[in-house]
């Protein structure tokens, strides 16, 4: 019975069907399935599958995003139950995400956020055109493990360095891992500005984040 349901749960994520994933999450609560089992044995299997397929070029961005959304919806439904049990899903880490000041491009960053939260990270996406103090302030507020910064333009990528410099100046650099991304970002750039990592796509960003929090 549970096996059947786990399969259905994974399928609802693969189908990117939030209505279905929420319905299954509610059903799990009704039949007193352990919410952590529902997540790890059911829904997560679907996310991993779509992630793999995407990596192989066999799934596409809309499917990836919809799977992420369906995952988020299912977890949100199960969350109150987990709290009641006094347990919590193991959080991979807390990530503050932003597109840097002067830059309003956000598709890539949003994708990274979707995939990170689908993979068990707690994501605080503070949007676009975010100045250094706002990014750092949020990281301190939520006790983040990782700060992720996006920039699409060569003219705005320098702002990523400003945030790192600011962290240095305030003696906070050691407290957060900093990752960068965006079209113009290269290995040379992230090394030059002394970030902790970079990725060119959302799947790579999840892998990187897991490595940085020691969960991979």
């Amino acid at each position, binding site marked *: 019975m549970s096996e059947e349901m786990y399969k259905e749960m994974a399928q609802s994520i693969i189908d*990117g069907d939030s209505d279905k994933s929420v319905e299954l999450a509610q059903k799990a609560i009704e039949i007193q399935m352990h919410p952590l089992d529902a997540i790890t044995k059911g829904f997560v299997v679907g996310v991993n599958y779509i992630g793999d397929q995407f990596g192989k*070029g066999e799934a*596409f*961005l*809309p*499917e990836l*995003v*919809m799977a992420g*959304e369906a995952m988020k919806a299912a977890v949100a439904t199960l969350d109150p139950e987990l709290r009641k049990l006094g347990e919590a899903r193991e959080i991979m880490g807390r990530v503050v995400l932003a597109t840097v000041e002067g830059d309003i*491009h*956000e*598709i890539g960053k*949003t*994708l990274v956020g979707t995939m990170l939260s689908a993979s068990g990270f707690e994501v605080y996406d503070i949007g676009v055109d975010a100045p250094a103090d706002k990014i750092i302030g949020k990281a301190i507020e939520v006790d983040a493990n990782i700060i992720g910064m996006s920039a699409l333009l060569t003219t705005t990528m320098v702002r990523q360095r400003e945030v790192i410099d600011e962290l240095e100046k305030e003696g906070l650099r050691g407290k957060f891992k900093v990752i960068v991304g965006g079209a113009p970002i*290269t*290995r040379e750039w992230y090394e030059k500005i002394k970030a902790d990592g970079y990725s*060119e*796509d959302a799947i790579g960003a999840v892998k990187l984040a897991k490595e940085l929090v020691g969960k991979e």
Partner: protein
Amino acid sequence: MQPKLTLLSDELIDRVLEEAYELLRCPGIKVQNPEAWELLAEAGAAIHPENQVIGIPASLVHKALESAPREFYLYDYDGNPTIHYGGDSVHFDPGSSGITMLNPETLEHETTETQHLLRLIKVAEQLAQYDAQSTAVICHDVPKEIQDSYRLYLVLLHSKKPIVTGAFTNKTVQEMIDMLALFAGGAAASRAKPRAIFDVCPAPPLIWSNFGAGNLIALARAGVPAEIVSVPLSGAAAPVTMLGTITQHTAECLAGIIIHQLARAGSPIVWGGAAAIFDMRKGATPMGAVETAMLDCSYAQVAKSLGMPTHTYLGATDSKLVDAQAGLESGISAMVGALSGINMISGSGMLDFLACHSAEKLVIDAEGIAMAKRMLDGVNLHTDTLATGFYDDKINFKGGDFLKQKITMQLFRKEQHLPSAIIDRDSMRGWKEAGSLDTFSRAKVIVNELLASYRRPEIDSGKIDRLHAFILDFAKKAGAEQLPTLEDYQPA
């Protein structure tokens, strides 16, 4: 709405037909086949035996056009109608009758043998863009007398798709017709659901040779589809002007249709060709020239004005390697052919003026065809409102909003052609990680994958054994004791 490319006005088409009728009457058509001569003479054409020329009156044209079918289908092995000759249907098949093949490692053009044809068949069988197989290269490892029928045998053995083929003599066309009948379960079955179509060429200017006309007559009588491949060369074997060439092409096709329909009214026949300009620097026949594509688009318009099914040779290149020239000539000309609504477009995979084939190019050309087919599919209405319906209360004015819509997931595959690994849209890093491969190198990888995944389709082994005995008999008569050994078929 299927987008359409047209180059001729209705008025010009009328003038082309008018002058083609005039050419048929005077100077007339040189007819070198006694049976065709007889048929035309009996039908009332004006014969001039002193120079083998026949003047054909308009009345014979009208009669032939009355009986020629406006559409028909080719069928796959399982009997499904998969190729529609007629209207603006568009299909592609690999080019035919190459004599060399590009070795992807040495880049040499090797003389083709059994293994080369098998390589092409196996690749084309697995590419959905090719609706038909072709007898793509000549196998020089069998006696000359069976080189045409042997190619057909290999395709019948290794494919379920319909076949574009052709015979090299008047004797072998009958043998090949018999092979198809044997495979279909009788002549009537072969006629009812034809598996193959035969290319038949007039010789420019205005000649129907003994062999060409003989093939037309044999095919008509068997009810096996024939495809006229008229090959005028602007400036050498046809007038230098495009309109002059198109008019000569029209006259050659009409003459062929008349001979064919006189042999058996109602047999299926296609208005086709491999027209080209004549290159004035090298004396070559460039298949990748834009004018060649323009000639084809134009003669297809003439055919369509008469409601006839159409064929052409496009999607090929004159380059010797699978390089940038190959890509641009093949891609552009395939697109022109598709937009012209030509029913069968032959030529993919071919290099060097249709002399050389390449499996790697076949794989790359499949992507060009996919793009052309996407173009043909046009811009479609999928939703009640064009845009307003997309902006619901969940819109928060962010760039990724539409990625999160269910309808995006439902419709993106309909709106976008998702290219194969031939097309690189990777990031710089991803491309480097994958080996920094160029298009040709990626095609080599895919060809190897396709060769590895190929399985010979399930085909009635009784039929195959009979076919094998049939072809072995031909081979023995031609002086060969055995046929080349095949990896995946050992005769009983």
